[in-house]
């Protein structure tokens, strides 16, 4: 193989056959209920050192209740893919959970900068699209995919991509290694007890991430009947056999928004931003994560019914999602 250039970034060596072996022995093929608490889902399926993937549109439809549970359980040494995200990476860094980030785009600030300075955090640069495409490669069961960009940049140099001579066109072509995360967490609007899940609206790469991750936790705004899934099969984003856990989490991406259901709590983001700037994220975490036992308790004791109603009312669009 004539490799014309190689990035120097660290990456997990793609191992399609290893993924297959895991699937063969670990994944449930029967229709059995996978509903469990966020506590059980995170403690059973997220391990220290795991590569963790998730899907969201910046602050929209992100699995934030599960991020908080990961912090609550003090998971360590996670490697995450922050593509087209918001302050989730900062939040997880504040919680001491993350040691490596594959970067597409994320909000950065004091926490990220300090963690880099202290040598506690390593960033590996890719792009949003390159990370989504690496998930696509994983979802196709292969070890790499060719693509038409990334080359010519320092981003390429810091990534784990390669350039080869295309055997069909003889031109240089960029190859990115497939990403097979250990575990993915994805928030959806609707899911049945078996894991058949519907993402309503545009999403970065929920299906690709679901397919390429060894373990998959779905958090859902509501459980819908299995027969409802079967009545409209074309709406199913993720079929049951990819899913290991289903967590019921209304307002599960608070303070982010879920299209068709509720708006974002911008004041909350500002509160987090202020805490970060003032070096007070420990207080923030104590208040929003550690001092409450669950997402449900956080909603009840910290957010409150009035705010939740206001956020519901702030979402004026149901068309295309629920209509």
């Amino acid at each position: 193989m004539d490799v014309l250039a190689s990035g120097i970034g660290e990456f997990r060596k793609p191992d399609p056959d290893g993924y297959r072996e895991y699937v063969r022995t670990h994944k449930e093929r029967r229709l059995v209920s996978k509903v469990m608490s966020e506590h059980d889902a995170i403690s059973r399926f997220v391990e220290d050192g795991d590569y963790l993937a998730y899907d969201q549109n910046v602050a929209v439809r992100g699995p934030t209740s599960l991020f908080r549970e990961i912090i609550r359980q003090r998971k360590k040494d996670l490697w995450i893919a922050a593509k087209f995200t918001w302050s989730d990476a900062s939040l997880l860094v504040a919680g001491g959970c993350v040691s490596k980030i594959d970067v597409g785009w994320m909000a950065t600030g004091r926490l990220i900068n300090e963690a880099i300075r202290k040598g506690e955090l390593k960033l590996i640069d890719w792009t949003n699209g390159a990370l989504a495409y690496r998930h696509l490669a994983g979802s196709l069961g292969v070890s790499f995919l060719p693509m038409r960009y990334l080359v010519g940049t320092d981003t390429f140099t810091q990534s784990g991509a390669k350039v080869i001579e295309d055997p069909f066109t003889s031109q240089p072509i960029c190859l990115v290694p497939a990403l097979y995360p250990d575990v993915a967490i994805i928030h959806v609007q609707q899911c049945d007890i078996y894991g058949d899940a519907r993402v309503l609206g545009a999403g970065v790469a929920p299906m690709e991430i679901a397919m390429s991750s060894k373990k998959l936790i779905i958090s859902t705004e509501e459980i819908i009947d299995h027969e409802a899934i079967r009545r409209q099969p074309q709406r199913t984003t993720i079929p049951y056999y990819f899913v290991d856990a289903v967590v019921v989490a209304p307002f599960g991406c608070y303070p982010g928004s879920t299209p068709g259901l509720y708006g974002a709590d911008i004041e909350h983001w500002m509160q987090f931003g202020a805490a970060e700037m003032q070096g007070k994220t420990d207080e923030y975490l104590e208040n929003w994560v550690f001092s409450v036992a669950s997402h449900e308790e956080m909603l009840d004791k910290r957010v409150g019914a009035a705010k939740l109603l206001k956020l519901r009312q702030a979402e004026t669009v149901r068309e295309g999602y629920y209509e």
Partner: protein
Amino acid sequence: MSEQLTFTDVEANICTIAGMIEEDKLYFVQMAGAPLMAVLLAKYMSAPGVGYVVEEGAVAPSPSFPLPRMMVGASRSHYRAVGWYGMNIVDSHAALGFMDYGLLACLQIDKFGNFNSTFIGGTYEQPERRFGGAGGATEIASQCWRTLLMTKLQSRKFVNKVDFVSSPGYLDGTPGARERAGLPANTGPYKVITQEAVFDFHEETHQMRLIAMMPWVTEEEVLSKMEFEPLIADKVERMTLPTEEQLTIIRTEIDPGGLTVSRGEWFTIDRDTDKRVT
């Protein structure tokens, strides 16, 4: 006292770009912020039928105004799209050559249009200030036919050498440099838009070239705000000022929260003379 017009550098950029939007072209627009606002302003005022896609997979939306404050991926920004897909799908639309223009903001840019959105100062391993990363800019700047780049005219932004090439311009500027690297043929940065000047790139040398300025600035002033010296077009055009109507629509419909447009440098222009007052 004559009438005055007051706006920010971001508002100036939004208005200038809005004036460039062509209704028979397709646009790939970065996440949010000023680039998206520019295409939305055009859609609101002059090019209602223009199609654009955003990274998270909404194709040709018709957003409902006023827009929400945190709009990326939110329901009102995807409202009445013709399709809701994902990132790999719309990136492929760009790979296939359907996207005429990419519309992006950048932190730092060099004379060949290579730009940085990753870090400033220090080293890659120990940066002075780390930023969000290349995001979707690299796929957009690589795969759209032409890229419109938006930034502020400041010497720390127009630099001899960017701290990090997050996304490709014309690389080393030599003919065919992008193609040799493996990028799609005949693509590249098209214009760089700032609050006081607009640049394009010379057809052969691929060097940045000053082509238009706001009425109140001189060539010397523009050059004083750049670390490198750009080419100067034979005739440097005068840019059009934002209109009252544009500014009103930006402030009431496009960014009613003022999260994006109220920051930055303020300009107050005397409308009789087109000179800057403050």
